[in-house]
């Protein structure tokens, strides 16, 4: 029997440009000497309680997990919804800053006692695209994209979002990619994720995509109407299997 004990707390990490930013860390109290780690990239609604629950879920399953507050610079100390509204109005998180923040989080995880040096990344909503971006920009061991849009298709004209398609970066993907999508999602729609899959096939980049019928965007969000337990439960199983293969010793 394992104790399932864990320690979770808010810490400060060094992110893009050496900026000190807030982050939420959860680590199993299991005394393991070789555990994998996961950088969690929060969804567009921000560094919120439901995503902190996800961080703790990783720790409960044996991984050290760390989520940088990507909106900390614009809104230090603000409530997650106010911070998200601020960043939404200014066009989102710049790609280079995201990569720097994930690099800082990954470095922090590798430095923790018990780390086996392997770090995965997972992101939801806007974080899905950012997970792919990070895995194409940094040396990581496994990446999970949960319904990230604008990897292949451009942001519709007139929107302030600064994100640009990044499928051309696929050649630099440093690790296997797990994609979890909803068949009823429009951003990304199934044709977009199929296009990404084809691009990865062409490059010989290992990936596994699952598209769930009856699910749309944000189906992992347990506190929202979009929650689809069947898709989310299977999605979590895919995540445990995937990280089990690529983040274990």
């Amino acid at each position, binding site marked *: 029997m394992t104790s399932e004990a864990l320690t979770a707390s808010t810490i400060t990490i060094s992110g893009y440009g050496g900026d000190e930013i807030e982050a939420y860390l959860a680590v199993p109290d299991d005394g393991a000497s070789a555990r994998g780690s996961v950088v969690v990239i929060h969804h567009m609604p921000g560094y919120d309680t439901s995503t902190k629950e996800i961080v703790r879920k990783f720790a409960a399953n044996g991984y050290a997990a760390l989520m940088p507050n990507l909106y900390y610079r614009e809104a230090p100390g603000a409530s997650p919804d*106010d911070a998200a*509204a601020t960043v939404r109005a200014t066009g989102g998180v710049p790609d280079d800053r995201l990569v720097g923040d994930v690099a800082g989080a990954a470095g922090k995880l590798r430095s923790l006692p018990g780390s086996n040096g392997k770090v995965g990344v997972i992101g939801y909503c806007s974080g899905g695209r950012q997970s792919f971006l990070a895995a194409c920009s940094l040396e990581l061991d496994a990446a999970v994209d949960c319904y990230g*849009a604008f990897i292949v298709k451009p942001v519709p004209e007139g929107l302030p979002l600064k994100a640009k398609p990044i499928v051309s970066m696929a050649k630099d993907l440093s690790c296997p990619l797990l994609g979890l999508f909803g068949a009823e999602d429009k951003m990304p729609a199934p044709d977009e994720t199929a296009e990404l899959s084809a691009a990865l096939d062409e490059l010989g980049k290992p990936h596994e995509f699952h598209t769930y019928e009856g699910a749309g965007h944000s189906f992992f969000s347990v506190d929202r109407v979009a929650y689809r337990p069947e898709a989310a439960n299977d999605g979590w199983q895919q995540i445990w299997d995937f990280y089990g293969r690529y983040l274990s010793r």
Partner: protein
Amino acid sequence: MCTYTTEKIDITGSGKGAAGWFALSDATVYFDHPVHAMAEHTLNIDFRNPGKGPAARVAVELTAESARALVAAIEAALAAVPTLVG
């Protein structure tokens, strides 16, 4: 879907937030997942004053039907006093 749509306008007026009244400088309007309303998507409006920090915000999340009714009500209210708002 997460629509990512955002319309942004400059506005003049005041709003009452968690810390009381404050001057408004802009509003963002978008149809996307709500934080609190129990609907897949809602028409969301943030009345803001970024100069006073992220918490200087009055937020509403309305169903599409409610948002259309609100637009009609605003138009009706303004139409009733054309000489005052011209």
